[in-house]
């Protein structure tokens, strides 16, 4: 069992065996989290700072809970409200924070690559909680854990990722992870919502839901951001729902035991029908949230082990 990363900035640098290591550990944390007493001590004495330059309730609370269950001192900083507004650069913010000696830094930022930049300037472990349109590694890992638990394996599955691929860091991280684990991936959506160079991604591209969902094991829906609707990328919400929204009729093309996933928050009646989202036989959306905490506990645990193995007096 090895996990050789100093930071978790994306799925791209991870090896398949590192992914498996992380998911195995996360499985144990699922068990822990289901007990009445949920405390462990893996992060005892360590300081975790959550720095969110972009609004987030779900991801931030998931990271906060994960840190607290492992005994870390957790601090949340909402960066929209603070110094960024006063014109401080990202680097200055990083240096200021670094002076407070955090051990784990969880960062979300609206610009691609911003978390990488920050990681170069601090001497703690950095976890990317989503940067621009680049990556959102813990989301892909929690999706992988959900799939593995529901399907009993994480390879040789047919997985359809549907909707706004172009603007989605979740889609990128999932694409990378599921490829590394040797699955067949389909991307389904209108071409305005497909990233450029899509032909080179090694995925099958469909613009029709019925074809795209045919005999898949997993249907992964993506959130359509409000600002992308209304004529910019698609003509309207209702037209999108009609063609690409997941309803029972479209889902019927998938395998009978196919699971339905969504990273949340959902737009019911836009990309997914409410009854499907709530169907406990098909939808694993609630499990995804549960796996999120476990995967983040595992990620921080593994990074902290590597952190503890290094000398403390490391200069910047």
């Amino acid at each position, binding site marked *: 069992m090895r996990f050789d990363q100093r930071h978790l900035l994306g799925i791209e640098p991870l090896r398949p065996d590192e992914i498996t290591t992380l998911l195995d550990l996360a499985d144990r944390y699922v068990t822990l989290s289901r007990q009445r007493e949920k405390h462990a001590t893996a992060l005892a004495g360590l300081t975790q700072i959550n720095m969110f330059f972009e609004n987030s309730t779900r991801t931030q609370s998931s990271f906060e809970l994960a840190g607290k269950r492992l005994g870390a001192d957790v601090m949340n900083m909402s960066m929209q409200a603070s110094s960024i507004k006063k014109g401080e650069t990202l*680097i200055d913010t990083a240096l200021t924070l670094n002076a407070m000696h955090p051990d784990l830094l969880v960062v979300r930022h609206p610009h*691609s*690559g911003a978390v990488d*930049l920050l990681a170069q300037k601090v001497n703690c472990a950095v976890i990317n909680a989503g940067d*621009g349109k680049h990556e959102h590694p813990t989301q892909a890992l929690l999706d992988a854990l959900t799939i593995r638990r529901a399907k009993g394996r994480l390879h040789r599955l047919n997985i359809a990722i549907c909707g706004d691929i172009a603007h989605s860091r979740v889609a*990128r991280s999932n694409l990378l992870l599921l490829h590394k684990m040797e699955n067949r991936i389909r991307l389904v959506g209108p071409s305005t919502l497909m990233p450029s*160079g899509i032909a080179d991604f090694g995925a099958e591209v469909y613009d029709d839901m019925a074809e795209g969902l045919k005999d898949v094991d997993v249907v992964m829906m993506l959130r359509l951001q409000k600002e992308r609707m209304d004529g910019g990328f698609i003509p309207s919400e209702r037209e999108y729902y009609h063609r690409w929204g997941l309803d029972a009729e479209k889902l019927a093309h998938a395998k009978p035991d196919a699971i339905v996933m969504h990273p949340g928050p959902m737009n019911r009646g836009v990309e997914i029908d409410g009854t499907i989202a709530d169907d406990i036989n098909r939808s694993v959306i609630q499990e995804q949230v549960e796996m999120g905490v476990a995967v983040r506990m595992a990620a921080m645990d593994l990074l902290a082990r590597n952190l503890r193995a290094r000398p403390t007096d490391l200069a910047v």
Partner: protein
Amino acid sequence: MKDTLLYNARLIDPEAGTVTEGALLLSGGRIKAVVTSADEIATLAGQTDAQDLNGAHVAPGIVDLGVKVGEPGERHKESFKTAGMAAAAGGVTTMVTRPDTSPAIDTPEVLEFIRRRANETAPVNVLPMAALTKGREGREMTELGFLLDAGAVAFTDCDRVVSDTKVLSRAMGYARSLGALVMSHPQEPILSKGAAASSGKFASLRGLPAVSPMAERMGLDRDIALVEMTGVRYHADQITTARALPALERAKNNGFDVTAGISMHHLTLNEMDVADYRTFFKVKPPLRSEDDRQAVLEALRTGLIDVIGSFHTPQDEESKRLPFEEAASGAVGLETMLPVLLRLYHAGEVDLPVLFRGLSLNPAKRLGLDCGRLSAGAPADLVIFDADKPFVLDRFKLQSKSKNTPFDGARLQGKVLQTLVAGTPVWSA
């Protein structure tokens, strides 16, 4: 004063397309004769101030079309003095400067100011370009006539595309009646707005806002239609994509007065060099695919692309140490251009006369200058270099005030030994 003889040299003649061993006789700041016969050289050596170059290459000094100097407005990034030193160190004997300063160089008064500053401080020739529209805002044309009289060698709004086609057509028409050269940045401005990379797999994986390479062709198509309409003398600053080349070729074959340039970066780097968001590799237009790089390299060899420039753009650390999307574009290149381009020579991709056709001869011809050639009567603006000498580039040793080069730590071959402007050494290694 005695004449000077540079002997035991390898003479790169971009006009003839040759590299010959011989000597150059300099007199009164000009090339008096190119001497290849050993007897003659021996005779002349006795009568002149003779300098043994030990087999170094001699080429006409580089005419760098499109240099940004931080004056006025951003002298902390680059002054005429530091840019001039960087130019001299890089074998650039003429800097053709850009007007994208703050304020923009859009009145004869500002042009006068920078000409005075340049003449006082820069050791190399400085020829200024002026803005095509006031404030480079694309709304009204500048006083092209007055600016021409004050010494502007070409008109350009640099990387700001004049999106109002009516404004551009009028400015081009007026420039045509003055015989002025208009330099344009071919790009469809709305499609390319906000882009930091070329669209494709790499940009998508990195999650960067990207523009289709097709936007360059659209911009060029529009510009060429306007050239056809107005008859203006036109130069496209950078053609960096394969898709734009057929349009350029057609325009040239149809007899329009059209030329095109390419930056040193687009000849030697591709989009993958950005790697993990290295902002020193952020240039405008963004770096392209390897297929595009190969295509423009071929266009340089065939002569379809005329001019190579550094597009020297000094940026301070603060404007580069930002997330990639927010970071400023551009790289310094005056000093690094020759050794970087010699990579292409060492890789067997271009020969030296072709390189200097793009670096010296063509830009000089396009601007109507008598330099850029190695022939009797031309000014003794020369670069003497050792094409093989290896070194590792250290950005903090650059003459330029700003150190934003993508080639920091690069292993390069080729060092400038001496740069002469009108026969006078302005740089000696």
